[in-house]
């Protein structure tokens, strides 16, 4: 049973049998999921990909990987997560309920499951609301997808592969539309895509008697020339120079036209191979791959530096106010498919954008204003007191007041320069008004400081992994526990990072929430998670000597599990409310957008 499971894992994933290795994947634990797992709104146009995915599957590394946000906190949990459906059934009743975040359908059947709904309803394996399904493709997969589609069009329409590729690119890889349009008005479509309607002949270099190159004006005997089917013939040197410049300097690939003035004929791969050096052809293919991913709305590059994978996700742009599509690449990077920023659950993209802008604009200024200024009680101009006495005269409205009590200066009578009067009505009123205008700033700072705090912790993430590993090694030595037995520390560390990332964004989210019942539930969830995280963090930081205590290990494992649970509850709840906005149910009211 385990063998069967393992063969379905992508080769680049560490094998589950070497725990230390597995644990070494930094932020997430990954599990495989049925390749065709659906989002409810998965459109029919995703069909071709499905086909490709299942075709690729038989060749072994299809890589449909879905990530869950959980972190394993024990061996048993690890095993139950990795086990197949059959095991899950064995466990159900005792094991499964105690690990509520093992919620994925570990469907390892080769056949894509025809009816996902059935699985969804089957009790213990609940799909959480914030989860979106996605697949990660490596460069070879991306190439294969294109090849498969090209082959298919080649077969269906009896068009040679180079032309099929050009057509597919022209139609942004929408195969159905291509076929339909081509059936309807073949000549027009071919023309628009930069292909003529003339007969197929293999591209070749040839000398033409009496030829004068229109670009360089050379006419020497035996000069090799090339022309695409449009018949615009140039010498091979000029053609090569032209293509090299387009590919190398301009980064152009999918739409390189014939060098003739006004000719829209597109150069095909075979012709290009014939004309340029192999390394340039490689670059050309790289650029083509890039346009493939960029042309398809359901594909995005993983933004992690040096990562060459692409992620496919069916979440549409217009749904981004209802769902936060967090995906995880094979390289371990978790990001939002909607805006490519790092994972920002539970806050929706739009709100994240506003928040980040606000922070960039306001934060430093706001902090300073809060610390160093007051507003004029009459006109609310912000005033900085940069020395001198308490008798203030507003430059703008000439209002005279006392800096200490904010009351009218005229009422100060003889107690000038020594304000000790706090009871006068004008002073209290002025301070009230001031407090109000200050409140919005304070409110922002409240959320910002907490957000920034968690962000700061996240920045330390880089060291945390190394620190944890060192600690694990130490603990192993001190306590005599095995490497597998100290894995709980790694799990705790990953949980801490993940939860902090979530907490950080809950504060940005909360800033925009108007107060209602839902907000209260949200804040309760937030509080619970934050308390749990802080408690876990404290235990995690304890010196190794104390960690040797086996009782503490159990406490930490429990706390880790609890944190994960709280995080899932928070995200699930928020995601559900966001999604419900679409169906006319309750939705969060946004405040101060």
């Amino acid at each position, binding site marked *: 049973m385990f063998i069967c499971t393992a063969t379905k894992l992508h080769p680049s994933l560490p094998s589950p049998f070497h725990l230390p290795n597995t644990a070494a994947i930094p932020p997430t634990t990954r599990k495989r999921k049925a390749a065709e797992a659906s989002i409810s709104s998965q459109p029919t146009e995703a069909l071709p990909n499905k086909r490709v995915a299942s075709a690729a599957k038989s060749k072994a590394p299809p890589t449909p990987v879905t990530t869950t946000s959980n972190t394993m906190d024990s061996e048993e949990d690890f095993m139950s997560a990795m086990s197949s459906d059959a095991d899950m059934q064995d466990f159900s009743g005792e094991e499964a309920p105690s690990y509520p975040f093992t919620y994925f359908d570990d469907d390892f059947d080769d056949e894509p499951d025809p009816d996902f709904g059935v699985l969804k309803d089957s009790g213990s394996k609940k799909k959480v609301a914030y989860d979106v399904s996605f697949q990660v493709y490596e460069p070879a997969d991306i190439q294969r997808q294109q090849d498969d589609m090209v082959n298919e069009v080649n077969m269906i329409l009896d068009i040679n592969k180079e032309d099929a590729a050009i057509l597919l690119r022209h139609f942004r890889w929408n195969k159905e539309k291509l076929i339909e349009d081509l059936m309807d008005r073949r000549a027009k479509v071919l023309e628009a895509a930069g292909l003529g309607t003339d007969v197929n002949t293999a591209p070749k270099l040839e000398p033409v008697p009496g030829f004068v190159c*229109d*670009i*360089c*004006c*050379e006419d020497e005997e035996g000069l090799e020339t090339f022309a695409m089917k449009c018949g*615009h013939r*140039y010498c091979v*040197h*000029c053609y090569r*120079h*032209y293509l090299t*410049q387009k590919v190398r300097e*301009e980064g*152009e690939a999918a739409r390189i*036209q*014939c*060098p*003739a*003035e*006004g*000719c829209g004929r597109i150069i095909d791969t075979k012709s290009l191979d014939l004309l340029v050096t192999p390394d340039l052809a490689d670059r050309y293919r790289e650029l083509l791959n890039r346009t493939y991913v960029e042309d398809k709305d359901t594909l995005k590059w993983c933004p992690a530096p040096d990562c060459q994978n692409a992620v496919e996700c069916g979440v549409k742009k217009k749904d981004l106010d209802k769902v936060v599509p967090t995906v995880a690449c094979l390289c371990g990077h978790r990001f939002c498919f909607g805006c490519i920023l790092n994972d920002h659950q539970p806050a929706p993209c739009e709100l994240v954008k506003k928040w980040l802008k606000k922070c960039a604009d306001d934060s430093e200024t706001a902090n300073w204003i809060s610390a160093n200024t007051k507003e004029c009680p009459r006109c609310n101009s912000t005033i900085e007191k940069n020395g001198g006495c308490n008798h203030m005269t507003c430059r703008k409205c000439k209002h005279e007041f006392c800096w200490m009590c904010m009351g009218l200066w005229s009422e100060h009578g003889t107690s000038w320069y020594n304000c000790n009067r706090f009871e006068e009505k004008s002073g209290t009123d002025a301070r009230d008004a001031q407090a109000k205008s200050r409140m919005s700033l304070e409110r922002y700072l409240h959320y910002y400081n907490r957000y920034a705090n968690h962000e700061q912790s996240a920045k330390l993430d880089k060291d945390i992994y190394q620190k944890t590993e060192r600690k694990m090694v130490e603990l192993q030595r001190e306590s005599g526990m095995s490497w597998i037995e100290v894995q709980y520390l790694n799990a705790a560390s990953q949980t801490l990072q993940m939860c902090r990332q979530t907490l950080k964004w809950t504060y940005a989210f909360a800033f925009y929430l108007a107060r209602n019942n839902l907000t209260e539930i949200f804040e309760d969830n937030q509080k619970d998670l934050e308390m749990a995280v802080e408690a876990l963090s404290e235990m995690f930081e304890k010196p190794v000597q104390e960690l040797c205590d086996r009782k503490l290990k159990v406490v930490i494992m429990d706390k880790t599990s609890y944190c994960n649970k709280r995080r899932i509850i928070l995200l699930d709840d928020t995601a559900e409310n966001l999604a419900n906005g679409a169906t006319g149910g309750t939705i969060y009211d946004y405040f101060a957008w």
Partner: protein
Amino acid sequence: MASKRIYKELTECTTSPPPDMKVCLWNESDLHTWKVALAGPASSVYEGGNYAVLVTLPTDYPFKPPTVRILTRIYHPNVTNDNLGNICLSILKPENWKPATKVSAVLQAVRQLLVEPQPDDPLEARIADEYRNDRNEFEKNARQYVTRYARGPPVFGDAPPAAEKSK
């Protein structure tokens, strides 16, 4: 390789120049800098004006597009209203440039731009607005510029002005 092509083009342009134009090199030793005297096309608002046009061919010509500047001040939506006289012409954009395009075709496109300005792709947004919304005012201003700057033989100056990009 480039010089052969440039020489051929130059010969063509000097012996049978495009309409309303006279073409020569700025100085005999430099094939890459051309002087073009362009007469404002008849029936356009620029009729009667004489324009000094500078054509610079890059070292990579014909694989890179030439640059064209109208040195004489001109009131036109697609020419910068300054001493640089940069032109916005789609065939001269690097991504649209085709190596088979000839300078004479470029010059004809410049002339065509005087006959028919392209206010949807302006360098001078204000003039483009005026062209679209108040044609009389535009024509009045354009003619004024002709009278003020473009009467008499085109003025090229002593040395070709250094290439500058305003946009």
